[in-house]
């Protein structure tokens, strides 16, 4: 007598298809940076997850037009910045009051003491989110890009479509603004 499988036994779930090997390597190497950039630009983990998914899908669809390994990161950053900018441009205009007066940051008190002393690590994400949220978008983007030590000033200037001198000047102000906003977030 042959044993028949029980008809009511559920079929095992189909294994998820793995990413194609080359693309899996790209994802492994860059997904954390891309997710983080999206998270800090959009301010919401669910939106950042969706954005990261969409960025890598765009990359997959355009892989044939990609020119070489050295530019992968810059290429992915460009897609991310465009994608997040599109998402924000519709949402931001409706929901967010932008603090346009930079002098608030320039003249804020407490410049003598470093705002980055004795930082509680469990609060770091929330404080950074708050501090970046106080900055103009351009400053936020520049700080997030320059935090990636693998990006040169030239690459940042290309990504943000301005001269390297302009990047340096704005970064100086962005750092100061971020420091003041970070201090206030404690």
């Amino acid at each position, binding site marked *: 007598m042959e044993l028949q499988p029980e008809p009511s036994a559920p079929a095992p779930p189909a294994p*998820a*298809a*793995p*990413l*194609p090997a080359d*693309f*899996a390597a790209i*994802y492994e190497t860059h*997904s*954390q*940076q*891309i*997710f*983080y950039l999206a*998270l*800090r630009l959009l301010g919401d*983990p669910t939106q950042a*997850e969706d954005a*990261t*998914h969409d960025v*890598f*899908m765009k990359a*997959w*669809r*355009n*892989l*044939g037009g990609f020119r070489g390994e050295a530019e992968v990161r810059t290429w992915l950053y460009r897609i991310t910045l465009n994608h997040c900018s599109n998402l924000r441009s519709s949402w931001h205009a409706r929901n967010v009051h932008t603090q346009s007066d930079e002098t608030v940051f320039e003249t804020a008190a407490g410049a003598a003491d*470093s705002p*980055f*002393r*004795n*930082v*509680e*690590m*469990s609060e*770091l*994400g929330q404080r*950074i989110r708050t501090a970046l949220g106080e900055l103009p978008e351009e400053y936020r983007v520049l*700080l*997030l890009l*320059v*935090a990636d*030590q693998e990006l040169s000033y030239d690459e940042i200037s290309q990504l943000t479509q301005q001269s390297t001198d302009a990047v340096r000047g704005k970064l100086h102000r*962005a*750092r100061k603004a*971020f*420091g003041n906003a*970070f201090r206030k977030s404690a």
Partner: protein
Amino acid sequence: MKQRLQQNQTSQTGQVQQQTGAQRREFSEAEEVIRADREQTAPPGSLGERLAESIASEPAPPAKPWWKRLFG
């Protein structure tokens, strides 16, 4: 019994404070703070799987046009 419970609570609180105290850091600049935050922020584990499923349901990426294959 009550005293023991209070003792336990006190020691637990002490551990939390100790752990919290050990997690304080000093940074020299804005970029360093952001990098530290990025290092402790990983994308959700399910994202790679979701991406793989999306890619599996996509047609293969278009091959290079014939003139690019010939002339690079």
